[in-house]
Structures are given as C-alpha cells and as structure tokens.
C-alpha cells in the first residue's frame, strides 16, 4: 500500500499557508473522505488559535480540547516508532504535560501543530537514542540470510498493551523492515517515519525537526539508501 494512502490528514489547524501547502500528500489525494477532512480544517485552524489563547490564559478545558485534536496522531506516531503501546502512552503523557507547562510561552511563530510535533519528535528521538544504547548490550543472533538481529525483539510482546495485529502480520516481512528501520540513526528514522509513514511534506519535516527542507531531503536519501541495502533481496 503506498504511503499516500496511509497518510491520514491531521484534523487540526492553526498553521500557516505554507505549512498547509506542505502538510502532506494527503491533501493531493482524491479520497472524498480526505477532502471532507480538508474542508473542515479551516474551521479547525481558527478553533486552534482560539483554544491556544484560552489555554494560555490558564483554561484547562481549552487545553484538553487541543489535546483531543492532536492526540490520535501523536499516539499513531509514537506507537509506530516505539512498537509498544505502553511506551507510546508514556511519550503521549510526557509530551502533553510539557506542552501544558509551556503553552504560555507559545508565540504563534509556527502552528501549534508544528510545535506539538516538535515536542513529540524530540521525545521520540530521545527514546530512539536510549533504545540504541540499550541495543549495544542486547544479545544478537544471526538469521538465515546472515543478518544480525536482536533476540529480544523476537520475543512476542505479551503485555496487555501490545497490539495483537502486530503478531498477526507477516512476522518475517514486518520483522525485517522493523529491524532495518531500527538500524537507521534516530534522526534518519524520524525523517523516514514522518515522510514515508505519516506523509508529511519534507518542508514540514524540516520545520518539525528544526532543520531545513534540504537537510531533511538529504537525510531521507540516506535513510532510503540504507534501507535498500538492508532489504536488497526484498525488492
């Protein structure tokens, strides 16, 4: 399934025209449901600004409304990156608490969407970095194709939060892609994740990660090259 079809438009607004233009491929799709989403976005954007101002005045209900605008997208990103609902929930909690504490400092220099994504991606990057450090000490095995993989990753996640759909997915294919993705640097992983799996425009990826579109583009090239190398036999 192409990434465009997977890209779910964020139903929230408060961003600039430039950001709206660059938000994602979803805007280009001809899916009537998505067009409906887009049509509803302008109202959402206005609401966002009002809600942010209210939240800045200390209105907790307004902040909770903002959370409802964004939290599904945040969870989706965190689950895909961490592979665990439990960890995703921790990131969700930390991100929105951080946003609540510092919403008074939000200056509308970017959209609230970009701002909250910046917080979330930073937390996710920290998580990926910690995971990478842990991985260095993890037991490693070699599969049939001579590729190394983390033994612990092969153990099914039996916790209540684990998604059973993940177990049902073709273990070999999904597992190999996951391992290939895990071998990217945290930043490469994040750029690829936001671009490929969440359909953000590279310009938006750059804004979220506090870098330029060009750097995001180069990082995407690097990530794709590495993935191609790792999954050469699957092409």
């Amino acid at each position: 399934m192409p990434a465009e079809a997977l890209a779910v438009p964020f139903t929230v607004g408060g961003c600039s025209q430039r950001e709206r233009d660059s938000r994602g491929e979803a805007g280009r799709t001809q899916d009537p449901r998505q067009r409906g989403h887009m049509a509803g976005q302008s109202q959402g954007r206005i609401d966002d600004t009002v809600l942010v101002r209210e939240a800045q005045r200390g209105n907790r209900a307004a902040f909770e409304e903002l959370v409802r605008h964004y939290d599904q997208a945040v969870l989706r990103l965190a689950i895909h990156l961490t592979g665990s609902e439990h960890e995703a929930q921790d990131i969700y909690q930390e991100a929105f608490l951080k946003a609540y504490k510092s919403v008074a400092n939000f200056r509308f220099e970017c959209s609230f969407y970009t701002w909250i994504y910046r917080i979330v991606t930073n937390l996710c990057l920290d998580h990926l970095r910690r995971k990478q450090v842990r991985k260095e000490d993890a037991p490693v095995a070699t599969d049939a194709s001579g590729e190394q993989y983390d033994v612990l990753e092969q153990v099914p996640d039996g916790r209540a939060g684990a998604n059973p759909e993940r177990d049902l997915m073709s273990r070999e294919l999904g597992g190999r892609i996951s391992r290939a993705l895990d071998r990217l640097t945290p930043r490469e992983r994040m750029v690829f994740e936001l671009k490929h799996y969440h359909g953000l425009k590279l310009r938006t990826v750059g804004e979220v990660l506090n870098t330029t579109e060009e750097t995001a583009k180069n990082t995407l090239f690097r990530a794709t090259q590495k993935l191609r190398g790792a999954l050469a036999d699957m092409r």
Partner: protein
Amino acid sequence: MKCDWVKENVLLYVYNELPDDARYELEQHLARCTDCAAELKTTRKFHAVLSELQVEEPSPNLVASSRMRLQEALETTSQGGFWQRLVFDPVMWLRQMRFSPALSAAIFIIGFASGMGATYKIVSNGGAGAISVSQFSAPAESSVAGIQSISQEPGSNQISIKYDTVSTQQAQGSLNDQRIQQLLLYAARNNYNSGVRMDSVDLLTQQPNGMHVREALIYALRYDSNPGVRLKALGGLGAYVKSDPRVRDAVLEGLMNDSNPGVRTEALHLLEPVRADGSVRATLQKLAESDQNQYIKTQARNMLAQMPEFD
C-alpha cells in the same frame, strides 16, 4: 536530460516532492529512457514493500485511557506562570530578536529616539539662544559643537555669541552673565576658528578677575596657535603679573619660548614692573647674554641695568 539527475530525483518523484517543472521534465525523460523507467519501477516497488509495515491506528481504548491519565496529571500540574515565564523568557527574547528583524529594528529605533530626545532635552535646558541669559544654567560643553561668532555691540556691554549645538543657537547677554562667560571660556579653549578665539579672548580680557577667565587667558597664551590671540591674552594678563605668580610664570614662559617676536616683546614689557623678582631677573640675564633676537637682548640688558645692584 541526464540519467544521473533522474536517478537522484526519482525518490522525490515517488514521494510527490518534485516541483511541477522538474516533475514534467522527469516524466518526459522516463517516457523515452528504459533504464530510468526501470529505476522508477524499482523505487516504487521498494516504496510499496516498506509500506507493508502498516501504521496502526491507536485503539479507542488506548486513546481513552491515555486521555484519562493525562487529565489526572493535569489536575496536579500547574501551568508555567508569570514568574516562570520571566525566568525562561530572556532566552526566548533573544531568539525572538534573532528571528524578528522588525522587532530588532523597532527596539533600535526606540533607543535611538530616546537618545535623541535626551540630547534635545539637555540642549534645550542648556538654553536656546534667544532666551534671556539669566535662564541659562551651567552650559553643557558636550552640547556645544563650536562657537560661530562673537560680537560686541558698539557703545554697550552687550555681547552676542553664536554657537553650535545640534543646531546653531544664539546667546545674548552682558559680559557679567555667567552663561556668556562660560561660552567665551569654551570658545577660547576649543574653537577651531582663530577669529572667534580672538574675539572671545578679547572679551575675556575685560573681565579677567575670575579665576576661570585668568586660567583661560593663560591657556591661550601658552597654547593658542594664533599669535594675535596670544597677544590679546597677554594684554589681559598684564595687570596680574605683579600679584599672581602663575601669570608671571606664564608670561616668563612666553618671553622665553614664544615663536613670535611681538609676543615676546610685549611679555618683556609686561615684566618690567617685576624685574626685581628672582625668576624674572634670572630670565633677563639669560636673554641679555644669549638671545638671538637683538631687540630682546638689548631690552633685557637695559632692564637689568636699571635694576639696583644686590650684594
């Protein structure tokens, strides 16, 4: 079109990130280049393979429990308040300054305007020329850029001085007025126009009683580059050669070192009443013995000859 360029950009094409013109060019090339068309096919296939790892929607239960957990935490969390904002804001302000040229420009303009306003206030407090001199407080020398002219009305003791501040102003008053005296002192020391210095020294010689005036005249005698000004200053100091040792020393210095013979001659004449003074006598002896100016040498000898002999 180069195949290399296409291979570099085919990924962006698949991701819908190419601008329209590049997209068009690439499509044109793909239509006639089988290698690049194959590259596109491979990239698309790989793209599709990676998409096999699906992005899962969070379950409604997970969303609900996450919201509840957050709500509980929000109840015990306080927002960053006013003081916290002040603590964190300096960094934010700096960032805003960096990213906001308009704000930086506005702050600069306000600062500049305040500076100009303060200067204007100082100058206007210092006295606009046409206002009665009695209103002037001590002049701020820093606000006086230069003295334009000095004139005395014939038959009166009224003096007009034009001086530059931010714009040229005029002050009027009698020589006794403090403001006028201070402007004259300023002009005597600082003016680049020797004519103005001459006028100011000339006027100051009419009121040489004040210590500041006398100091200004001594300064003019020692350091003014114009012999006319030095001569005027000498004239003003003449009356104090007897009573003020500093004046005597300055006149002696002028007599010894001045480059202008007229100034030296005048100094010599001024010292006549105090020729018995030890330092004057020593100077006269020196001049009488070896001065290059014949007139000075003769005059010094004459003065020494008129002096009573001491044992």
